[in-house]
């Protein structure tokens, strides 16, 4: 590959146009480098070159998000670059968000690698670290040289499609992607050594920092349950016998939607579980134990609930990632709402 072509995105401040009073500055493209681009080009030497710089005011970008993104993408496209760099934004919040948003959009639209740099507490870092490589910088522009020193080699690797190493080696903010590798010592030894350090009050590094847990607040109670349309949803893997859609026993890639119109009871002959993570015998004997259709039919007949929805949704929770589970629910909850369902009984195992 010849000299890597780069388009650089900066805000009005770093372009020397002005501060807050010029934050409504509309996107403008200039050939070659402006402001911090000089430092980058110095580092790149003969390997790469910033061929154009796009300048945009932070307020303009954030207040006209879709328009600004489209305008900037058009400008980038004209230069047919191998890589797009936004920032670094240090601790400037709106600049950081703009850098993250435009980098993400350029990568998605133009399918070229992108890179940004921010201070870890910049809100843009948290918003875009999972989709964009963001180098961890100091909290002010005084850290420019330091930031460029880390960003330049990572930029070249990205542009050349080389393997990207671990966050601590490359200097970017961890993107939350877990990857396996073989350590030098077995896990038990690592655990014992970690405990000894912890007991001595020495520094140790956990191999899995705890995630911020997504706790779901329950909705307010249903006002009149006797009029409510209730649907059944389960992660217990109940499926029509034979598992027609081949829902996986673990790590499900899909969910099923099946009609229970006219079904009063799930029997050994008609339903079973596809779930591999619990003793299936009792569910296979009587799937009402996991998906309580029989009880809800009784309640329906007794007038204690309005109606049982004609369809149930099902998947196996076993080993299925939270992200994919969420995406299932985002899709079928729209259908539930469209079908006039008022409440859902969600059963797990």
């Amino acid at each position: 590959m010849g000299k890597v072509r780069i388009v650089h995105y900066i805000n009005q401040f770093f372009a020397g146009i002005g501060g807050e009073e010029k934050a409504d500055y509309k996107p403008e493209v200039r050939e070659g480098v402006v402001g911090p681009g000089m430092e980058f080009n110095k580092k790149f030497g003969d390997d790469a070159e910033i061929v154009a710089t796009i300048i945009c005011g932070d307020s303009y970008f954030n207040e006209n998000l879709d328009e600004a993104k489209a305008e900037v993408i058009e400008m980038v496209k004209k230069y047919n670059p191998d890589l797009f760099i936004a920032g670094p934004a240090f601790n400037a919040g709106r600049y950081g968000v703009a850098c993250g948003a435009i980098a993400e959009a350029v990568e998605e639209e133009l399918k070229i690698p992108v890179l940004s740099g921010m201070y870890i507490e910049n809100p843009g870092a948290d918003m875009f670290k999972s989709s964009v490589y963001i180098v961890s910088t100091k909290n002010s522009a005084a850290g420019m040289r330091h930031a460029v020193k880390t960003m330049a080699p990572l930029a070249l690797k990205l542009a050349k499609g080389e393997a990207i190493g671990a966050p601590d080696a490359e200097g970017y903010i961890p993107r939350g992607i877990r990857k396996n590798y073989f350590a030098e010592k077995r896990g038990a030894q690592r655990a014992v050594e970690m405990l000894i350090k912890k007991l001595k009050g020495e520094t140790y590094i956990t191999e899995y920092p705890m995630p911020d847990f997504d706790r779901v607040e329950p909705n307010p109670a249903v006002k009149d349950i006797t009029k409510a349309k209730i649907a059944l949803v389960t992660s217990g893997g109940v499926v029509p016998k034979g598992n027609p859609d081949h829902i996986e026993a673990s790590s499900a890639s899909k969910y099923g939607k099946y009609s229970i119109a006219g079904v009063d009871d799930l029997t050994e002959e008609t339903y079973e579980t596809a779930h591999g993570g619990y003793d299936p015998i009792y569910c296979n004997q009587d799937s009402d134990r996991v998906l309580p259709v029989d009880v809800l039919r009784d309640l329906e007949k007794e007038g204690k609930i309005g109606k049982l929805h004609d369809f149930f949704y099902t998947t196996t929770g076993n080993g299925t990632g939270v992200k994919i589970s969420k995406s299932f629910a985002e899709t079928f909850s729209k259908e539930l709402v469209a079908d006039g369902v008022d409440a859902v009984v969600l059963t797990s195992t």
Partner: protein
Amino acid sequence: MHLELGNIFINDVQFGSQTKVENKTLYVNKEELITLISEDEHLKSVDVELAKPGESIRITPVKDVIEPRVKVAGSGGIFPGVLTKVDTVGAGRTHVLKGAAVVTTGKVVGFQEGIIDMTGTGAEYTPFSKLNNVVLICQPVDDIKPHDHERALRMAGLKAAEYFGKAGKDIEPDEVLSFETLPLLKSIEKYPKLPKVAYVQMLQSQGLLHDTYVYGVDAKQTLPTLIKPTELMDGAIISGNCVSACDKNTTYHHLNNPIVQDLFKQHGKEINFVGVIITNENVFLADKQRSSNWTADLAEYLGVEGVVVSQEGFGNPDTDLIMNCKKIEEKGIKTVIVTDEYAGRNGASQSLADADPKADAVVTGGNANEVIKLPPMEKIIGDLSIVNTIAGGFDGSVQKDGSLVVELQTITGATNELGFNKLTAKGF
């Protein structure tokens, strides 16, 4: 309590007219073994194959892996309360056929689980590719009840391991290792300046094919209790589970618990390893609460300053793990937890089903959802067609040429949570 482990190194396994150990080779009298295992009325057929390191062999499904051991001095026999009387074990001398194992296959209950490749990519992930394996292929009688089926396979493996263990009874071991656990107060007197440490071992106990047995008792019917580490080396704990085979402890793992071994290595140097607490992972909330309360209380009662907690399985037991960790930390006792991850095939999802900021020292055995490709093997022991439906398999897992595209989850012992392997994961 003092135990000597006499390791007899085994470098090869071969069929022969007599079952014996000679020149580091285990000879297997196939007919005698088949006759012994066929005694169980629940088994319709029994066959035996050998699988050695480097051979182009794939074993699937895998019910259990067991190391042959025999008691040569001290009370009790191997696998007390299961194959022998419930005498207390863990003292005296035990011989080990180090480098050999019994692997059980044949149709297992429900979804078929577990893969051991003896060569190629898969072999790097399972510790059992490095062993000289005697593979028992057991098919159950028709219409067998699931619980009877599970037990028949479990017992077949243990019986075979005992049978081979006996062949090492009068052999002079290649090395003898020595382990001792003193009564608690004496241990504290012996190393008054070292921090007291215990090991909390969580045992899988979620039901059929997810069970573990302690001196023959189903762990889901037990309360957390104390056990001496040397008892584990004599088969006090055996495996009854293999679903999602990557992070289930086979009996081999229990006999060779690496956390016990590595705590012993630091005993008297950096720490004072005073004992083991075993607890379970039942599915009911009240059981989880009771067991975690009890575990934390036992740790406090022992007066330890630190514990290593190991999990078995994932998802539902993540709750037990976090409850144990949190409650033990709240007693002012420092914890390190050993787990594995289900971060999705792309690694982007959160890895555990429960979390707490107190769990600030975690060792991971890797992301079990990561997809790998395993090359075709010349020989299949067991049944390849099941791979599309095992935990970690999916439609299309079995490719036309016999190669497999599967999650790591399918491979026996790949992300073991006793820290048996070097595999781990980190955030990118």
